C-alpha cells in the first residue's frame, strides 16, 4: 500500500456532530494546498457528512474507510 504523507491528524473519536467537521475545518485551514489531513471519527453521521463537506469546500476526499466503529478519512487540502 502507498504510504501517505499525512500533515496532520484530527482525532474526533467520541465527538458528535458537528465537532468532527468543525475540528477538521480548523485543522485544514493553516495547511498548504495539497497537504493531507487524516481524520478519525466515531460519529456514524460523519460517513456522509465528510463527503458533503468535501464537495462543499472543494477539498478532495482521498480515502474513506471504516474499522469497527472508527471511520477514517484522508482529505487533501484544496
Amino acid at each position, binding site marked *: 500500500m502507498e504510504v501517505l504523507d499525512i500533515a496532520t491528524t484530527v482525532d474526533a473519536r467520541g*465527538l458528535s*456532530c458537528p465537532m468532527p*467537521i*468543525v475540528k*477538521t*475545518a480548523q485543522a485544514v485551514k493553516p495547511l498548504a494546498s495539497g497537504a493531507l489531513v487524516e481524520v478519525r471519527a466515531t460519529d456514524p453521521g460523519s460517513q456522509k457528512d465528510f463527503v458533503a463537506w468535501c464537495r*462543499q*469546500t*472543494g477539498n478532495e476526499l482521498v480515502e474513506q474507510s471504516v474499522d469497527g466503529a472508527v471511520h477514517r478519512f484522508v482529505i487533501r487540502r484544496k
Partner: protein
Amino acid sequence: MTLTTDPATSFDAIAEAIADVEGIDPEATASEGSVPEAFVQAMAEERDEVKPRELVIICYSGDLEKTWASLILASTAAASGVPTKMFLTFWGLQTFVKDEKRITGRNWMQKMMAFMQRPGISHRKLSKMNFLGMGPWMMGVLAKQYGVAKPKELLEAAQALGVEFMHCQMTMVMFGLKKDDMIDGLGEPVGAATVIELLSNGAAPLFI
C-alpha cells in the same frame, strides 16, 4: 459531431483557420489532447471563484435548544466555507451577554427581566421541561456523555471560524444592555434594514 484525439487526420483546415484568427499554434494546443489545457485550467479557476451563498441566521430565541441548534448550524456553515452571519435580536441577544453578568439593565423593569431570566450562554433555559434547571442540567450531562459540544464551545468555534455576529441596536436599548455587558467580538450594532439588505441580495435566511 465526433471529436478525435488525432489532430492530424481531421479538422486540419478548421483548426488552422481558428489558429489564424486567434493567433495560437494548432500543434501546441492539439498535442495536449482533445481539450486544451488552458481551457481546463480556466474552468477550474472559474469554479474556485464561485462563492457559496451567504447564510444569515436570525437568532431570535433565547431558549437553550434553539440557541444550540443555531450555533451548530453557524459553526458548521462557517466550517464549510459559507460566509455566515448571526443577527442577534430580542431573547437571542440575551444569550450573548457575558456569562458572569448577573443583572443587566438601566431601569428596574429591565433589571427585573434579567433577574427572572439570567442572561448569558451558559444560563439558557429549555422552552419545555425546564423544571427549575433540572432539564438543562440533564441535557448538559447527556451532552458530556455523548461528546456533544455545548453552546459555549460551539460559540468559541464559530468565532474562530469567522462567523460574524451582528447585534440588534433596538434590543440593546429595550433591554438596557451596554456594550460592556456583551461578549467580545460583536462588531457594530445594526438594525432590521441591514438584515433585509443581506436577504434581498440572496443570503439564505434562517429564523430561529
